[in-house]
């Protein structure tokens, strides 16, 4: 059976572009943001990601995906990378890279886990660890909406020191434009802590989240166990499956 009968317009290839690191921002002891100059960058939507390709001096290459942290209208593309123990690529990006260094990326990739300030209705974001990155792009984009709907970010971190973008999230929540940020910490909390003190669970989602009738757009991103738990609980609480968008960064955390 000849597959050559397929008639599809040949789309243009997403080219590899050279990114130059402009600025490096320490977010936590294990996480850094890289502000990049990417000549020819075509623009993106909040929630999309890029593929990064590193090349060693002997020509060896390694490729991984990273979400875009910056808002579409930002002048520079920002990535935020968490150092994974024993990882091949993340320790380099999260620890070693310096301003002026170059690597390749291509994108933007992904057209499903996306949000734009033009969408109305409540926005419900659930993040675990570095899963906050694409959701941050959404919150940074939301600032530009003339009449933003209510938004809630429920963000799970290990400890208070592991919260990425903490100050900026505080500032965004203080704008009084309908954004609420709720932190929960899974591995101990400082004295006087008023946020959550356990993993994201059904009860937490039911107590904090928007009612089903409000039909929020839901975006969940983080390690697989958090995404599985949150997506299943929200679906079970009555939120429509097509309103629940998920992105998973990490491994299963156990055998399949």
């Amino acid at each position: 059976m000849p597959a050559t009968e397929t008639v599809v317009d040949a789309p243009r290839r997403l080219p590899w572009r050279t990114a130059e690191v402009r600025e490096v921002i320490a977010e936590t002891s294990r996480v850094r943001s890289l502000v990049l100059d990417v000549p020819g960058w075509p623009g993106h939507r909040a929630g999309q990601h890029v593929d990064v390709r590193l090349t060693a001096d002997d020509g060896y290459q390694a490729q991984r995906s990273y979400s875009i942290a910056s808002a579409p209208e930002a002048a520079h593309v920002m990535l935020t990378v968490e150092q994974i123990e024993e990882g091949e690529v993340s320790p380099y990006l999260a620890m070693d890279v310096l301003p002026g260094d170059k690597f390749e990326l291509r994108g933007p990739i992904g057209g499903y886990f996306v949000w734009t300030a033009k969408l109305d209705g409540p926005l419900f974001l659930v993040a675990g660890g570095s899963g906050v990155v694409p959701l941050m792009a959404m919150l940074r984009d939301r600032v530009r909406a003339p009449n933003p709907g209510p938004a809630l970010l429920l963000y799970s971190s290990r400890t208070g020191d592991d919260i990425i973008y903490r100050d900026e999230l505080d500032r965004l929540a203080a704008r009084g434009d309908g954004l609420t940020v709720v932190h929960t910490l899974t591995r101990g909390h400082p004295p006087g802590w008023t946020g959550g003190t356990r993993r994201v669970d059904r009860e937490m989602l039911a107590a904090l989240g928007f009612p089903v009738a409000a039909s929020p757009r839901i975006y969940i991103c983080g390690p697989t166990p958090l995404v599985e738990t949150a997506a299943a609980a929200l679906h079970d609480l009555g939120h429509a499956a097509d309103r629940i968008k998920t992105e998973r960064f990490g491994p299963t955390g156990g055998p399949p």
Partner: protein
Amino acid sequence: MSDPPVSRGFRGRKAPDAPADRVPPGQHLTSDFPVLSAGPTPQVNLANWTFALQNGGNLLRKWSWAEFEALPQTKVTVDIHCVTTWSKLDTQWQGVTLDTLLEAAGLPQAPADFAMIYCDGGYTTNMPVADLISGKAMVATRYGGKPLTPEHGGPARLLVPHLYFWKSAKWARRLRFMEKDEPGFWESLGYHIYGDPWREQRYAGD
């Protein structure tokens, strides 16, 4: 094309255990089994589960879970390659090949050249029938000898190991033969229409 810029100080792992003829370009080996899906994991009740073959709008054959489990089973050990750049070698699956399903449906051959797979949760993916037959693909119900868990696509997922793993659709429920190729879910969102890892066909135009 000019040479890619060297990432100062990057050495990489160059896994000595990675056999070059089994790891496609841009991929790296992983020992665990990452999960990727665009929405919640569907809860499936086996009592209501069916798998159907369809030609255009016509139903060709439908199996209940019990009927499906009674079909001749095939076991394979294959390498799998996810577009997010991980590959996993020697994964063990059991299920029913498309050849067996066609035979059980009384079809001497596939009625059209392309197929779309439909899944619980609304996911779809397309491919040429040539990539599904001749032992190249199965509807898998077991992984490593155990029933496939829901997050990995259980009770039944397509397994087309020679294409990027998004083609191995989780929670598969229906296969529709079609005359012309049409894009499925990710194929409509910028991913490659065919998805051959050895030609690094990740995104449209690759």
